[in-house]
């Protein structure tokens, strides 16, 4: 079997906290592993501060993990390239940022942004350049392309800007796109268009997309698989239908119950407790809020269990139901 398109293996990242001379560090990502296949959309969900953007920056090589490996088509890129990514890596892994009002340089035109990516990666040059820019704009639904190419970012709406950002990522003909909440800053009526665009890319070009979101409803519509992050650890992962229709981890259930959907969403109580203690140093990070927590949860980190095919859950509750399977993810 060929290796997955992009694979992360036991990524760890911590940041220094406290002032000068202090060696204290805060762990933001702990042993995060996952894989992304060609033509697949993997949704990464979790609350604010759970480490979603940190993970995205590691994969886009804007930041380097403390430990762990990133494998692109089976090749360990960190071991080979070190801190700064090669042009070849940039040519295969692209990123779309959350805020389209910040990710385009206000002093450059739309055409400039696209041309730079094309030229830098040798995808077009000379007379071909303009034609390619127009083709790219058309492919993301920005028409008339000739006219839009000449505009500056402030002359575009949020949805249009985000499409330009997608077009820029597409310009280098990547295999992987990391999209960090690409629609959270957009108006609702333009969101769906951007999501459909991303979905089309996986279908037509076989691009693998890591779709970071806090909106589970979008994830359900877009993603093939879902990865749930809590406090920097993966707590549940599996096919979208399994994870979102039959959630097993108490945190996933909590998230789902809070999605504003349906007339009586405010009437159902939240399946969580009010945290009264900090997370136990050795046990499950969710224990202080978990309604099912028991002694085990405070003493030992739960292993991954595999209740169904491709469905991994990191919770002690599963130990009676399935086979512990830490090996399957960390391989």
């Amino acid at each position: 079997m060929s290796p997955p398109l992009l694979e992360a293996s036991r990524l760890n990242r911590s940041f220094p906290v406290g002032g000068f001379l202090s060696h204290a560090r805060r762990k933001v990502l702990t042993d995060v592993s996952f894989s992304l296949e060609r033509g697949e959309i993997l949704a990464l969900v979790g609350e604010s501060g759970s480490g979603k953007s940190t993970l995205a920056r590691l994969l886009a090589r804007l930041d380097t993990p403390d430990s762990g490996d990133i494998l692109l088509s089976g090749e360990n890129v960190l071991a080979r390239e070190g801190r700064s990514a090669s042009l070849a890596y940039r040519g295969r892994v692209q990123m779309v940022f959350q805020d389209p009002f910040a990710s385009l340089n206000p002093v450059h035109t739309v055409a400039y942004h696209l041309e730079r990516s094309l030229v830098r990666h040798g995808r077009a040059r000379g007379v071909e350049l303009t034609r390619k820019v127009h083709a790219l704009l058309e492919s993301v639904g920005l028409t008339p392309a000739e006219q839009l190419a000449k505009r500056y970012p402030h002359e575009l709406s949020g949805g249009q800007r985000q499409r330009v950002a997608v077009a820029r990522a597409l310009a280098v003909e990547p295999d992987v796109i990391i999209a960090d909440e690409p629609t959270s800053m957009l108006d609702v009526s333009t969101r769906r268009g951007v999501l459909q665009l991303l979905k089309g890319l996986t279908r037509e070009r076989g691009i693998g997309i890591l779709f970071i979101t806090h909106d589970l409803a979008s994830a359900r519509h877009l993603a093939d698989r879902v990865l749930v992050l809590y406090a920097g650890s993966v707590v549940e992962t599996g096919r979208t239908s399994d994870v979102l229709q039959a959630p097993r981890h108490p945190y996933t259930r909590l998230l789902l119950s809070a999605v504003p959907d349906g007339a009586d969403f405010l009437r159902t109580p939240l399946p969580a407790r009010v945290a009264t203690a900090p997370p136990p140093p050795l046990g499950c990070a969710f224990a202080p809020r978990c309604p099912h927590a028991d002694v085990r949860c405070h003493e030992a980190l739960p292993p991954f269990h595999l209740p169904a095919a491709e469905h991994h859950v990191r919770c002690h509750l599963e130990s009676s139901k399935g086979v512990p399977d830490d090996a399957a993810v960390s391989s």
Partner: protein
Amino acid sequence: MRETLRRLLRQRKAAVGGTLLLGFLLVALVGPWFVMDPTELMGQPHQPPSSAHWFGTTGQGQDVLAQTVVGARETLAIGFAVGALVTLVGALVGITAGYLGRRVDDALTLTTNIFLVIPGLPLAIVLGAYLPSGPFRMVVVLTFAGWAWNARVFRAEALALRGRDFVAAAVVAGESHARIITRELLPNMASLVASSFIGNTLYAVGAQVGLEFLGLGDVGAVTWGTNLYWAGNDAALLTRSWWIFVPTGICIALVGFSLTLLSSAIDELTNPSLRAPPKAPKAAVMRAVATPAQEAAAPGALLSVRDLCIEYMTQAGPSRVVDQVSLDIAPGEVFGLAGESGSGKSTLGYALLRLLPSSAAITQGSIVFDGTDVTALSPEALRAFRWSRVSMVFQSAMSALNPVLTLGEQFHDTLAAHGGASRASSYARGRELLAMVGLKPELVNAWPHQLSGGMRQRVGIALALALEPRLVVMDEPTTALDVVVQKELLQRVLELKERLGFAVLFITHDLPLLLALSDRVGILQAGKLVEVDTAQRLRTDARHPYTRLLLSSFPHLGATDTQAPTPDVLEQAASALKPPLAALPGGRR
């Protein structure tokens, strides 16, 4: 860029400063050919102005006019050269340090700081003694003494820009460091470069004149500084020969004035908040003309808004942001207001408390709250009305909380402003309110920054309820929060509403949320209320195409989800009802 230049020219400060400076440049450039030799002894010493010597003669007998004109050349040349060099060196060092960060930054920042703490000018003068005398020495000395401060400014700017996503996006696109510095960062600092250059030139002229006046320059040269030096040496003050130093003094002052004007013009241009805001349309006058026959307020309504229009003054003229909105809110009702960014939701909410910014005005219509016409309240009546009858919870709780006061103090501020509660009773009430919104009462002694976003929003709600108002306007109070925190908070709000019986105007773009929360919902599009109905009915049979578009934009979690709307439905709805791009400064968040 061209637009910026045009605006610069239109500005009066820039025009005056620029003209003055250009005049001096012209004099410095061609003037010396039209005057006498400034070093030759052309007449009697200490002669007042006459037809032979328009500005008189110096203590030695040279022509003062010639000295002033010729002096302009070297003074300005050195001034601009040092201005450019200091800006260049400072920008390069600062941007490199700020952008590359880590060890490069540490090293460069340390160097910069050393230069800042040692008295640069005296050191430079001592070092300058080893250089051959002349204009070159002055340039080196002044650049050496002046670059460090600039490097600091540019480093700060680079640090701020480095964190912006477009820099990260350029890195991901594979751009090199050099290119990111020169093509992505520098063009964004154009205004800083311009104003630094002007400021540095000002510094250079001033320092140069000062040094030369003290005799530390090249006393053989003809510059404004040496002119003053010789005037001092020749006892111009003692002999009351004012004409020797006044022309040079005026020239220096005028150059300084023009440079100051230019730099303040650039600041204003790049920082819109310094510009005088356009005046709001005259509310009272326009209301008198424009109020149509008013329908009576609905019986039993707590709040009745009729034909409300609100306009912002913008650069492009008045822009109507709320357009003939009429709505009623019953006591104890939750009324939801939905709309996209720029549709005027917040403006409408602020108007209910008359909290509009100075550039906005209610130009038409009425707001009647419980029998009181809010639009007609006097300032004192308004102060008593706000918060005690209608209060507000803001999108960003931090903007409503004072970061330097403990929560207890903020409760006291609010309570004391309406009826002079004692500090002890305010704190007691604060504890009670905090418990009510589900926070620990001990938090009265906490500072806002010690709270999470969700906790701050709870404090915001507690503050809004402090005076038991009958209506609370909530402007996107949960938009910045996670879904779990959002649900906890909303459940608490509904519970409190049941207990205390206040009505809520809830503003958000999240329609599914609004439908679950509200009794009735109004859909705002481009300032117009296009549909108002019960949440129940809107969910199943919304009539307006825009409402349907909004509804279909939210994917659902349940398996019984309707399919995505066909593109032509979307286009139809969108093109029929294009919301105008709101021309508000900072209208988008």
